[in-house]
């Protein structure tokens, strides 16, 4: 089979990318950029760099695909993916640079929604992540993915996995220690609870043990990979695997859009939302989608969510063992013995080990200064990057002074006083404490804004960390638009009757309970 299509599409996409680069670089877009926010529009540096590289690549490979002759083989198979990959990337570019900012302009023009204090696009999370996934869903369900792009769309999961592995470079040991402890407790409780509940509901509703087993792993652990890993131990049939994946997709897609709206309505902090998404949403890609939808221009939420998600994947071997024992006890006619150890070894996702490897590399300090925290290092002197114009002004100090009475915790009170006395954050510990204070939302919006400004003035992002963030953002944007292109109505219909009901009940209870636990246990940044 020859995969490369003789089509002009990739060549045209390349020309369109080059046109974006040229018009932005020559200043021809300045009027439109002014309309999209002027100085607040932050994508200009991307507009004048990214499209030229991918534009040239697309034009060259596109010309070869259009005019060249193609024969069956490895080169044909792998090079044919370029057209689809560039198609996804082009959509991601358009959505990130133009569609999402335009939606924000329209929404801002409509005014705030009721007494929420937020504009519609903020409330619904209509940012480039959500709009990118929606664009993918619209393309596949209304227009169908073009033949020339079909092979490349199957690269989207690779993009997400690469993004997750690279995310390992952005954690510090302190963060992982703090988040790790919390995530182990929460994930342990919710994973075991959901698996147990699906198995119990399954036996009450009299669905086959193989169906209940595979559905419990999918609903409890991490969606599709857990489904595939547990299928052999419960001897699940293909149709049961399809039902489970359909149920996870149906529930997960809903969560991906609804979670950020609830998070916005409740005013959740990044850590709270990340912990909730990482616990309550089933599939890794959808966890990333919801986290980025909640915080599209930063990755703090994504980092928290992924720690929870990875902790969940690490529980997979325990669940496979549990299901193996459970299934053998319940089924009298187990047709063949399955080696559980082999299943775990063969199906355990290697990208999780990659994440840990990247984290280990980053802790050696090769990507950022050794004292970095959340990708940034502390510096409050001129030698370490502090600028004197960033000292707090008199009116800002007065605001903080007037609200300091509302702060109860002694450590926060002391750190705040030191900030007021010196006009800048004095130590890295004070900075962490004051960040916690801002995220706890104890003081007014204005005061929190001042605290955030004081924090930014003493935190400097290492160049390598900045570069990693860019790569991760684009890999996720690419993966999520492609993910949208794989969400078809027909694949969601596969959820079927009873599995969808059980999945819905367990998914809802898990999401609601984890929300309550997160709101009770986590009150600030970690």
């Amino acid at each position, binding site marked *: 089979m020859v995969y490369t299509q003789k089509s002009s599409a990739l060549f045209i996409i390349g020309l369109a990318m080059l046109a974006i680069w040229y018009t932005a670089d020559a200043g021809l877009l300045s009027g439109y950029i002014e309309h999209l926010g002027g100085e607040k529009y932050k994508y200009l540096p991307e507009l004048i760099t990214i499209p030229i590289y991918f534009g040239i690549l697309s034009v060259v490979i596109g010309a070869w695909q259009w005019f060249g002759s193609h024969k069956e083989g490895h080169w044909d198979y792998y090079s044919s993916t370029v057209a689809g990959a560039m198609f996804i990337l082009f959509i991601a570019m358009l959505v990130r640079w133009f569609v999402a900012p335009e939606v924000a302009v329209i929404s801002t023009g409509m005014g705030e929604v009721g007494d929420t204090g937020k504009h519609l696009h903020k409330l619904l999370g209509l940012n480039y992540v959500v709009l990118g996934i929606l664009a993918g869903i619209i393309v596949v369900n209304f227009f169908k993915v073009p033949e020339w792009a079909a092979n490349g769309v*199957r690269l989207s999961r690779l993009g997400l996995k690469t993004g997750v592995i690279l995310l390992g470079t952005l954690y510090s040991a302190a963060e992982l220690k703090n988040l790790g402890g919390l995530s182990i407790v929460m994930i342990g409780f919710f994973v075991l609870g959901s698996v147990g509940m699906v198995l119990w509901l399954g036996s009450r509703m009299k669905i086959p043990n193989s169906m209940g087993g595979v559905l419990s792993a999918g609903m409890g652990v991490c969606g599709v*990979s857990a489904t595939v890993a547990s299928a052999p131990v419960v001897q699940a049939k293909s149709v049961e695997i399809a039902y489970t994946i359909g149920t996870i997709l149906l529930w997960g897609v809903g969560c991906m859009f609804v979670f950020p709206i609830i998070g916005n309505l409740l005013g959740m902090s990044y850590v709270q939302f990340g912990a909730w998404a990482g616990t309550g949403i089933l599939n890794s890609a959808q966890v990333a989608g919801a986290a980025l939808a909640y915080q599209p221009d930063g990755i703090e939420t994504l980092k928290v969510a992924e720690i929870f998600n990875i902790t969940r994947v690490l529980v997979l071997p325990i669940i496979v063992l549990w299901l193996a024992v459970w299934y053998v006890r319940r089924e009298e006619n187990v047709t063949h013995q399955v080696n559980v150890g082999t299943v775990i070894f063969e199906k355990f996702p290697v990208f999780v080990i990659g994440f840990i490897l990247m984290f280990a590399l980053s802790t050696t300090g090769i*990507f950022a200064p050794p004292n970095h925290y959340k990708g940034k290092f502390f510096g409050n002197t001129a030698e370490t990057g502090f600028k004197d114009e960033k000292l707090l002004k008199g009116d800002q100090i007065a605001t903080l002074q007037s609200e300091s009475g509302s702060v109860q915790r002694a450590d926060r009170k002391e750190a705040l006083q030191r900030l007021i006395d010196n006009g800048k954050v004095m130590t890295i510990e004070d900075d962490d404490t004051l960040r916690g204070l801002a995220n706890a939302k104890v003081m007014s919006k204005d005061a929190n804004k001042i605290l955030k400004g004081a924090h930014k003035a003493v935190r400097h992002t290492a160049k*390598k960390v900045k570069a990693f963030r860019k790569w991760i953002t684009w890999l996720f944007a690419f993966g999520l638009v492609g993910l949208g292109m794989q969400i078809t109505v027909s694949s969601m219909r596969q959820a079927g009757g009873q599995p969808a009901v059980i999945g819905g009940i367990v998914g809802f209870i898990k999401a609601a309970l984890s929300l309550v636990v997160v709101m009770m246990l986590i009150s600030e940044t970690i």
Partner: protein
Amino acid sequence: MSDQEEKYDRGSALSIFGSDRKEDFIALILALAVALYVYVSN
């Protein structure tokens, strides 16, 4: 998804690779390549 599966004689409807393990390893190699590029160029 099943209607798409027949379209490809290699990989699956969700991936161009024959197995999840292979996709994971390729993701790992890509991530290491990006890390090396970032390390060298910044």
